[in-house]
């Protein structure tokens, strides 16, 4: 029996595979297709304090091996989430993480403050890296200072562990990672999407109503993997890697490069069973290679 569990220190996951925020709905959307109890965990769609509309359509455009989204963080807000969704999630035997959004540091803190009163949430993933809200993709994770101040305020407010979600749209992701660590983040997750665009040459208009959106999917994997490797080599807190993971092989690349766990995003759209299949593929690899505990694989890249 291979032991697939991974220990993030503040949190033990039954396996390293987590559904990524914004691609896993509120989890419940996947019930017809998979047994949610089998997952390492999942992160629900980004939540602001109040309900939000998101951007007008078109919100999605496909590119070679990639997907640009400009969803713009629509959501039901913390109140409805705690009343309508959370009670239904509490019955699952898996790790529920809430992706926390805010227009400013105070809003991040108020989301956390509100949710701290409710059971059934294992950690907060602080979404300081969504490129789809402000112009030119501005967000706290583009600067070490803004990252530090957002993370440290939320950390102070929260009674639960904080995972800071980093942006790939930076010159030096290690610098941002170190700021988040210094500010007290319990873990880091990376990456969010890459600021991107597509043009319709017939109409000469952007293919997304918001002009720019965030690129995800297999196209970005090589860049996201490099960033995960860089960060994992420099911080002491655990790193959760993501970007373009479709298969167990992809997940293994991230873990060998140093990720303690992985999030699976766009793959869930292509195949709602992706997370469960990836878990099976991890198990098969470990069995084939005679690995008893998957944790022993983490960061074993021979460079």
């Amino acid at each position, binding site marked *: 029996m291979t032991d697939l569990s991974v220990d993030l220190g503040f949190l033990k996951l039954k396996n390293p595979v987590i559904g990524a925020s*914004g*691609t*896993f*709905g509120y989890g419940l*959307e*996947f019930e*017809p*297709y998979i047994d949610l109890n089998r997952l390492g965990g999942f992160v629900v*769609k980004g939540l602001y304090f109040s309900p939000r*509309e*998101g951007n*007008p*359509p*078109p*919100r*999605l*455009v*496909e590119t*070679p*091996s*990639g*997907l640009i*989204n400009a*969803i713009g963080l*629509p959501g039901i807000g913390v109140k409805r989430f705690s009343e309508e969704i959370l009670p239904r999630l509490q019955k699952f035997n898996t790790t529920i993480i809430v992706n926390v959004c805010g227009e400013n540091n105070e809003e991040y803190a108020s989301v956390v403050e509100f949710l701290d009163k409710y059971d059934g949430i294992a950690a907060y993933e602080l979404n300081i890296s969504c490129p789809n809200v402000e112009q030119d993709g501005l967000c706290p994770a583009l600067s070490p200072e803004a990252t530090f101040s957002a993370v440290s305020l939320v950390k102070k407010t929260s009674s639960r562990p904080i995972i800071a979600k980093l942006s790939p749209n930076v010159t030096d992701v290690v610098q941002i990672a170190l700021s988040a660590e210094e500010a007290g983040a319990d873990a880091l997750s990376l990456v969010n999407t890459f600021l991107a665009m597509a043009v319709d040459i017939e109409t000469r208009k952007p293919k997304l109503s918001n002009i720019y959106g965030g690129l995800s*999917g*297999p*196209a970005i994997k090589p860049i996201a993997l490099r960033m995960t490797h860089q960060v994992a080599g420099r911080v002491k807190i655990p790193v959760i890697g993501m970007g373009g993971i*479709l298969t167990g092989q992809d997940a293994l690349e991230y873990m060998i490069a140093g990720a303690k766990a992985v999030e699976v995003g*766009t793959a*869930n*759209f*292509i*195949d*709602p*069973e992706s997370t469960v299949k990836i878990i099976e593929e991890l198990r098969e690899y470990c069995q084939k290679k005679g690995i008893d505990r998957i944790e022993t694989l983490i960061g074993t890249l021979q460079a």
Partner: protein
Amino acid sequence: MVKDPQARIVDKKNWKSYFSLSLESPRIAAQAQSGQFIMVRVSAHTQPLLRRPFSIHSKSEKTVEIFFQITGLGTELLSQKKPEDSLDILGPLGKGFEAGKNLKGKDIALVGGGRGIAPLYFLSQKLRSYGATARIFYGGKSQEDLPLKEKFEKEGFDLHWSTDDGSSGFKGFVSDLFKTELEKYTPDRIFACGPELMMKKISLIAQEKNIPAEFSLESVMGCGFGACWGCVRRIKRDNREEWVKICEEGPVFSGNDIIWEEGDE
């Protein structure tokens, strides 16, 4: 809502750029309602990356059929599939037409433009089984864009058709044909599917004449089952306008609730 990773193609038809594929998938067939759709994986690789949505065109006990037009890479790859190949599909998804036994004896207009005719065939069968009269208004750019004309005719439906270029039937848009016909009769209800502008025109006509109407909307879909928030359209809800996921709450909506996209009239 189930995933069938191996729905076998048991029949394939082709008319120029239009195709139909009949897929063996008893579990999906058992649940399928007219107006619902399935998400089809068109490539085993990463291009195209996402599944493609197709309305359920007809069903039998064991099969669901899709009917589609080649509009890009995804539909092109799909058109290359052969009988005995298998497709990975999800379905049935969304909410279909509100067409139940209460429509018995009613006179129903089905208006389809181009590939938008796809869900209306399933609906016509349903309506007939409920004892309603379905009249079909079918429009295309040209003669070649009316591949299902014979099928409806053979089954004895009252069929009216138009082509933009006049190569067959009424010359002009199907919405104009429909308007002309409405001078002669008033249906009890309208169900329509087709290009945005066509549906918008039909909706105006329906509102003018106070005929209840439902429309099957399109949007780019990331997932098809509510997880991505990609497929939204502007819909009226309790006197407010909201971005509503059409994969979950649609694709069929009442004309009164749809905020049509702006564009050249």
